[in-house]
């Protein structure tokens, strides 16, 4: 099989170099490709073809749930996805919109990002710029890998026992945001570290040669060059914590309006995932539908963040390579 394809490609190259071939359209080219793939002479080739088809079918099965989920949510949820849903607060017996949840999610992400992003970016700067490869670096890397593997409900239980009760902060925006910040840290740290690693050494050396200190080089040169990569990591982490429910159940409380203070019962805050859970646990049928509209809104937000992050990272890798 392989020798056949080698031979045909060789002759194709020769004819192409001797005389310009007539243009082959993309449809015809893919048909030819398909024909060459389906050409079977021996049992081994038949087995080869069968396994290839099997692997292709497996891939289709793997991506199928994505479409099933999107279609299901779109079919049932799209009708409820009106402007009113985003702009009104929930009214009597939970009719009305989910503005409380959208504002709440944004506030929680802001608090989480405000604490989590500086901590993890600075940590990554320390281990990749200031510490030599060795024990310190591997300790920090190991810690963030372990942190990334801890189940979200364990973060929730820890946040409840430590921040809410032991530190006596109480449920609300601060406790929920801090718990989410803990969950953000490993993602941001590892992606920032990767982004810093991809900055060429020559950039740093050029800065040193001009007489800059390490501090200046790090902040004015290295971080600037790694900035798109860092933004990618931050966006990925935000997309991840936006959809977390379990850490928030015991830390953020719930509310039908937006929080009016930083601490205390007035700071209790709703979030999109928690609202979905509350609505779907409710037997009233219109809330089941609203849960799907809310899930669709959350899905669109998370996927949008994810796509932007991937777009930035692809663009940057292309430029660096």
């Amino acid at each position, binding site marked *: 099989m*392989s020798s056949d394809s080698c031979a045909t490609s060789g002759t194709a190259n020769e004819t192409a170099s001797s005389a310009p071939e007539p243009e082959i359209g993309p449809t015809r080219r893919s048909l030819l490709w398909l024909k060459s793939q389906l050409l079977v002479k021996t049992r*081994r080739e038949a087995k080869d073809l069968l396994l*290839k088809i099997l*692997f*292709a079918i*497996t*891939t289709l*099965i*793997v*991506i199928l*749930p*994505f479409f*099933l*989920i999107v279609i299901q949510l779109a079919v049932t949820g799209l009708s409820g996805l009106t402007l009113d849903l985003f702009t009104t607060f929930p009214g009597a017996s939970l009719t009305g919109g989910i503005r409380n949840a959208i504002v709440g999610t944004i506030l929680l992400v802001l608090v989480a990002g405000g604490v989590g992003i*500086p*901590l993890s970016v*600075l*940590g990554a*700067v*320390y281990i990749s710029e*200031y510490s030599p490869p060795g024990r310190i670096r591997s300790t*920090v890397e190991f*810690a*963030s890998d*372990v942190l*990334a*593997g*801890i*189940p*979200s*409900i*364990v*973060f929730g*239980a*820890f946040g409840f*026992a430590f921040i809410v*009760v032991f530190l006596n902060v109480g449920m609300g925006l601060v406790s929920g945001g801090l718990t989410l910040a*803990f969950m953000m840290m*490993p993602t941001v*740290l590892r992606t920032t570290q990767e982004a810093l690693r991809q900055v060429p050494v020559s950039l740093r050396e050029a800065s040193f040669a001009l007489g800059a*200190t390490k*501090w200046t080089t790090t902040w004015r040169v290295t971080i600037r060059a790694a900035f798109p990569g860092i933004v990618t990591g931050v966006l990925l982490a935000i*997309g991840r914590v936006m*959809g*977390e*429910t*379990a850490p928030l*159940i*015991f830390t953020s409380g719930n509310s039908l309006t937006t929080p009016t203070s930083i601490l205390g019962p007035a700071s209790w805050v709703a979030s999109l*995932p928690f609202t*979905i859970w509350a609505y779907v646990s409710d037997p009233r049928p219109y809330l089941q539908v609203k849960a*799907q509209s809310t*899930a669709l809104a*959350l*899905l669109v937000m*998370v*996927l949008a*963040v*994810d796509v932007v992050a*991937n777009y930035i990272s692809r663009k940057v890798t292309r430029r660096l390579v």
Partner: protein
Amino acid sequence: MQDAVGKFVLLVPAFAGSALIILILTFLWYEATPIFLAPQGGPSIVIQPIWDPNRDLYGIALFILGSFICTFLAIAMAVPLGIGAAVFLSEFCPPRIRTSLRMIVEMMAAIPSIVYGLWAYIVMVPWIKNSFAPAVQSNPLTAWMPWFQGSTNGLSVLAGGTILAIMLLPTVVAVSDDALRSVPSSYREASLALGATKTETAVKIVVSAAIPGIGAAIVLSLGRAVGETMAVLMVTGNSLQIPFTLLDPAYVMTSIITNQLGYAFVFPLWRSALFAVAFVLLMMSVSFTVIAKWFVKWGMKTRGLV
């Protein structure tokens, strides 16, 4: 001068992660000690199956068993499918299709677990109740099978395992695909030059060279499966019984914490038992991470890839 100060200042955030892990460990341990020291509890709660806080029975073995069964089901479904898809993506797929397939896989990884759970609750659970269970129980080919017995309302181990498998697939596919692609192409060329077909090369050469990465993918997804909360909570039925068939409901470790921590907080022993469950979960996830790292290191060494 500025450098020295800078270095010192950055030391704090660098160790924030380590400090946080130590804090979580000590705090969960501190919260879990009362049940381990109390006469009603003791370390043997890990193997006692009866959970009834009203009678001071705090056995958590049922939840550990439930988690294990769901995880095992999920891994048994997700690993073969995920590796198959990864082989297709890295070995046979035309590059243009590959980019969009990878993008879909990454999007699947980004879908929040509550959305998966909602979908499973609305679509999969009724499907198991109304179509799957009657079909397998009336079909003489499958009706005798002990794992398809019993009546079901759809909320079952099967639903939990399947939605978990769907949630694990993106991780398995992405990590295995990276592992397969990091195998040097000279290996493939050598195998093809010896006359092996493309699938023979893929299955026998590339997959076996990428075993450490694939193993790490499996162990990492084990950790995710044990710790997954919302989706499993919504579809496994949360019933205090041992699941004997695939259609029986179960209660997993993450669900019992989510469901009862709120009420249990004023009862010291009950609360402490829930934190013991959290501690067991934490230990499991930490050991899975360590095993995955060790696996990659071992594989790199034995395969001379370092």
